[in-house]
């Protein structure tokens, strides 16, 4: 036993070292690939410099006229718009599904300085939508991976890597370096933080989000006038003063996301940013004469029409951030006295069942092989997930069917998903992906009186994640 533990420990160390080595190799490969692309660009620019037309005579470098020509001849852009783009600096917060396409188009358009903030590393589950990252970059910092790609796309810009997440403490130092901010993050806490710092530092904010097949886009704090000036654009708190309940917040990892959906929202962010910069409306003075009502663009893949634009309110008279009565200050924010996690609530793992109401995955597996007929396993994941993989013999009753008024408690009738052949005292086990929803359902089934006749109802602790760890290593992780 002791020697087995030692062997396992040695193997773990060996695996960790090998993984580290693999990560380094992938990084070297990605660097080399970017360099070879960069070199081919340099060769072109060396030839361009031999051209007798000197840079001084013209405001842009010779190559830039070619590179940006197709957008410069669009009447709304022109040489003036291109020069504004060149002199502008944009901060992209989040290098994920929104940030990747947004950054690609912003770099392509020639925005002079681009900063990217993200503390995460590239994972395989990102690749279907986060188009700046690639298979060889799994494990690399997202910011480094994104900048590698962008440098190969357009080596003539300045890129700033901010490799940790935006926090109340670091936000002033980072955001103050830029003219415009894109919120490409994925959580209510960061949405409120970014909006607040943009109000305080008078930066316009292009905010987008996406989940499953739907997306939202809003241009906030534009024009970016001082708090209390009603002519300024509304902030995120004006539109959504109350954060959604923490337990209702669904991430792309839990709810799913289509690549083109988040892609279209990120591309639209880049478009709004380009419009704001090229038209000279970035600053409060440039935008005052053409104030129009703020709007939110809603995109729903399956809706008719798929795009809807709704008119938003102007600044909320009692807004905490941007009204004359605002309680928000730079000191308060950067000292960390504003608790965004507390404001938005914390989604703690569910823990509502007693020890005797839960069973380990390996215990259930044992029980299943011993007597397979006289119990019922209820899988409460949504049907799309159940169809991907399920435990043999389990029945699917999605968690959503227990929500709202759709599940009548204690109405005396046996639910139709319980087979007639199941003995009235046969145990019911509930399983889900991670072991949270299964507890909620177990509790509701008991409250509905299904546990009379001495029937045992309990959930599988840790859900199908534990099933993979303890019982079936081949279980697909999606």
């Amino acid at each position, binding site marked *: 036993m002791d020697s087995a533990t030692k062997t396992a420990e040695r193997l773990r160390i060996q695996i960790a070292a090998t993984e580290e080595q693999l990560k380094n190799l992938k990084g070297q490969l990605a660097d080399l690939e970017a360099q070879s692309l960069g070199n081919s660009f340099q060769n072109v620019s060396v030839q361009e410099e031999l051209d007798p037309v000197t840079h001084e005579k013209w405001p842009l470098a010779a190559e830039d006229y070619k590179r940006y020509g197709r957008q410069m001849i669009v009447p709304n852009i022109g040489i003036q718009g291109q020069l504004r783009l060149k002199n502008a600096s944009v901060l992209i917060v989040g290098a*994920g599904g929104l940030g990747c396409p947004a950054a690609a188009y912003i770099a392509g358009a020639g925005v002079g300085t681009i900063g990217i903030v993200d503390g995460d590393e590239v994972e395989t589950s990102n690749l279907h939508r986060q188009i700046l990252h690639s298979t060889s970059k799994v494990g690399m910092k997202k910011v480094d991976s994104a900048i590698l790609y962008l440098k190969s796309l357009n080596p003539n810009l300045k890129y700033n890597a901010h490799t940790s997440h935006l926090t109340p403490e670091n936000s002033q130092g980072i955001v103050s370096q830029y003219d415009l901010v894109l919120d490409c993050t994925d959580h209510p806490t960061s949405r409120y933080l970014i909006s607040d710092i943009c109000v305080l530092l008078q930066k316009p904010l292009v905010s987008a989000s996406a989940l499953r097949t*739907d997306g939202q886009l809003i241009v906030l704090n534009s024009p970016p006038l001082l708090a209390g000036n009603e002519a300024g654009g509304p902030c995120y708190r004006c539109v959504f003063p109350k954060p*959604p*309940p923490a337990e209702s917040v669904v991430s792309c990892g839990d709810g799913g996301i289509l690549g083109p959906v988040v892609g279209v929202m990120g591309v639209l962010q880049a478009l709004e940013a380009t419009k704001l910069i090229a038209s000279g409306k970035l600053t409060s003075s440039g935008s005052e004469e053409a104030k129009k009502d703020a709007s939110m663009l809603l995109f*729903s893949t399956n809706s*008719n029409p798929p795009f*809807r634009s*709704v008119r*938003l*309110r102007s600044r909320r008279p009692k807004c905490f951030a941007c009204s004359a009565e605002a309680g928000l200050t730079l000191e308060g924010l950067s000292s960390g006295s504003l608790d965004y996690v507390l404001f938005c609530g914390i989604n703690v793992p569910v823990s509502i069942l007693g020890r005797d109401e839960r069973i380990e995955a390996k215990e259930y597996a044992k029980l299943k092989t011993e007597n397979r007929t006289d119990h019922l396993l209820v899988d409460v994941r949504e049907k799309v997930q159940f169809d991907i993989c399920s435990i043999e013999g389990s029945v699917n009753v999605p968690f959503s069917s227990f929500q709202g008024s759709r599940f009548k408690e204690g109405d005396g009738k046996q639910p139709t998903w319980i087979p007639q052949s199941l003995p009235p005292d046969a145990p019911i086990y509930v399983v889900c992906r991670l072991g949270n929803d299964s507890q909620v359902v177990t509790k509701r089934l008991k409250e509905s009186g299904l546990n009379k006749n001495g029937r045992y109802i309990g959930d599988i602790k840790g859900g199908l994640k534990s099933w993979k760890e303890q019982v079936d290593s081949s279980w697909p992780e999606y």
Partner: protein
Amino acid sequence: MGSSKAPPGHFTILYFASANSYTSKDSEFLPARLPLAKLFETLDEKYGGMKAKVLESCLVTINLEYVDMPENGEDGVIINEDDEVAIIPPVSSG
């Protein structure tokens, strides 16, 4: 999410994002006229718990225009026949 017209005496309500998952519907028709102040109650009766779990953090529009939810027992605006109401919860993921 249909573009079909509401039957006489009804308005259309569109459910976006988490309102869509909570009701399992993209849209439906509800009886008009309805004071805006009664909208959340009406929906909460139909979909138990929806007010606290979804509606209170939502943006509400009538015919694509933002509306303020009435406070202190006021009726606010009236939702009329043929109006299109949208329930728009904040989406934060990306």
